[in-house]
């Protein structure tokens, strides 16, 4: 704390006697050790009040006031002091009087606080004035400093409290927000877990190293293992793909089952993870095998029936004996060259084998007539496509055999029969048989003419490529012919 003598201690002396004011001046000026005392002398009540007012406005208040009680102006010392106290609640007031009595003491109580009111009996000693100046000046300064510190502290505490309250409110909001987020996350995760746990498929959650984090009940059953035997083990990382992967699962009891596995990425316990869902398809696979076996049996039965039908047709028409078998071989070779599926080739083969079945209804004399056919006979022969369709249309088969036979004389330019349909409207099997049929017909002997030769046959087909015949089919036929593999005599070609 700074010493009071280093600051301005302001003293106001109010007395209506000029000599007394001069006495104060002498005493105080003589007693002071430096220039820090500021003395103001007033002769009237009004002057004193105005001086205090001005000092308060300038924020240079008086530390103490020496106030003569018996002022001759309109207000006596007590009334003047009352006004001064209203202006400055902190200044010390020393009432100076020659007749200190009970009445004065009582009236002075109207000027609180009592610990800032003092009395000095006239005639006073210089030392008394000096003591008042020193002690009250020091006290005023201490009180002022104390108030200043208290104010600073109060302001500091208030600011800090405000800041803390603000921080608290922000923290509370943040906590609430986090609680809501955590709750939402917890619910979301619980929802996920429920979906995963109750899923009928086995589900395994893996971390990014392929280590098992979690397995559902279905996975326990599928793998025949408890979570404690599974969680924490390296299951292995699986590839993310749109298509499921087929896997075989080794169960604890040594049995092997087939599963279909898919993997997707997800967030698990806040970390990037992967969920593998595995569906047991063992039964489905077994059923597929059984179905394949019965389909193979069924196809064998159909093939047997078709071979029998083919034999019947060729028995009636010895001149074209072997034609259907030749067409079947050429058609199959073309299809294989074009890398068509096994299933397609199987249907093509059976259709080709009986493509002329409709000829069963054509009189044998016409079929084996060595002369050129009349228009009527030719029209009659053309009905064999329709008749073939009628014979086969109600037979259930995995391939559209009846329709293939119906269309095998159609041409891609629409000039064929019986419907005159074009291009892609003609079944692809029928387009292949059409080429094979023409090649074999031209390359073989007929009752009404000798063979035209294989070279001629292939040239004719090439000539009508894209007109009568499908271009891709002809191209495959050309490649086979160039390789010496088109007709059935080349044994090394199959």
């Amino acid at each position, binding site marked *: 704390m700074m010493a009071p003598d280093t600051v301005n201690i302001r003293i106001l002396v109010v007395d209506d006697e000029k000599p007394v004011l001069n006495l104060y001046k002498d005493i105080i000026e003589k007693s002071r050790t430096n220039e820090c005392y500021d003395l103001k002398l007033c002769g009237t009540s009004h002057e004193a009040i105005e001086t205090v007012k001005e000092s308060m406005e300038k924020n240079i208040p008086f530390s103490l006031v020496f106030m003569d009680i018996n002022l001759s102006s309109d207000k006596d010392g007590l009334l003047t002091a009352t006004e001064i106290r209203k202006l400055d609640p902190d200044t010390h007031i020393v009432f100076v009087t020659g007749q200190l009595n009970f009445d004065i003491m009582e009236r002075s109580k109207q000027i609180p606080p009592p610990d800032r009111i003092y009395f000095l009996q006239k005639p006073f000693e210089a030392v008394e004035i000096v003591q008042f100046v020193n002690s009250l000046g020091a006290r005023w300064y201490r009180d002022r400093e104390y108030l200043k510190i208290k104010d600073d502290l109060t302001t500091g505490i208030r600011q800090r409290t405000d800041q803390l309250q603000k921080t608290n409110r922000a923290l509370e909001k943040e906590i609430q927000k986090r609680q809501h987020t955590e709750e939402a996350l917890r619910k979301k995760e619980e929802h996920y877990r429920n979906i995963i746990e109750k899923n009928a498929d086995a589900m395994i959650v893996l971390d990014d*190293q*392929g280590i098992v984090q979690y397995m559902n009940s279905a996975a326990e059953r599928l*793998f025949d293992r408890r979570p404690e035997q599974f969680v924490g*083990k*390296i*299951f*292995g*990382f*699986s*590839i*993310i*793909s749109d298509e499921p*992967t*087929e*896997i*075989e*699962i*080794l169960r604890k009891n*040594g049995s*092997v089952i087939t*599963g279909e*596995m898919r*993997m997707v990425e997800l967030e698990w316990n806040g970390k990037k993870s992967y969920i593998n869902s595995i569906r047991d398809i063992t039964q489905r696979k077994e059923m597929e095998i059984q179905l394949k076996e019965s389909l193979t049996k069924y196809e064998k039965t159909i093939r047997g029936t078709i071979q029998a039908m083919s034999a019947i047709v060729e028995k009636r028409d010895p001149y074209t004996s072997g034609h259907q078998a030749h067409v079947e071989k050429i058609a199959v070779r073309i299809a294989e060259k074009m890398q068509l599926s096994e299933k397609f080739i199987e249907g093509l083969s059976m259709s080709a084998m009986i493509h002329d079945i409709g000829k069963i209804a054509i009189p044998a004399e016409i079929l084996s007539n060595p002369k050129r056919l009349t228009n009527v006979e030719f029209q009659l022969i053309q009905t064999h496509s329709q008749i073939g369709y009628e014979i086969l249309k109600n037979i259930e088969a995995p391939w559209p055999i009846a329709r293939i036979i119906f269309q095998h004389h159609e041409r891609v330019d629409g000039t064929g029969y019986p419907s005159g349909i074009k291009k892609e409207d003609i079944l692809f099997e029928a387009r292949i048989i059409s080429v094979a049929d023409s090649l074999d017909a031209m390359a073989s002997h007929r009752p009404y003419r000798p063979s035209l030769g294989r070279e001629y046959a292939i040239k004719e087909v090439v000539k009508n490529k894209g007109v009568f015949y499908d271009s891709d089919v002809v191209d495959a036929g050309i490649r086979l012919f160039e390789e010496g593999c088109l007709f059935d005599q080349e044994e090394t070609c199959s």
Partner: protein
Amino acid sequence: MYLLKVYISNLTPKTLEKIGLFKEMLTAELGSGYHLELVELLKNPMSALNDDILVTPTVIRCSPKPTKKIVGNFLDKEQVMFALGLINP
């Protein structure tokens, strides 16, 4: 040198074809810097037990450590090479 094992249930033409493709994939990426062992799970149950094999097909990178494992499809070159740590991401 990478030591790899492929566990399969049993040898079929289809699995042999897949392994052939896998070898082509490895050779294209690693040259001769790998050795691939083919293990039939049902004929080598003890080996499967030691390697913690739960499903087939499984491919394991046995060395260098750390051991890495993939299950199911092992023909997606990029994902498989990355998962087995044979290439950098």
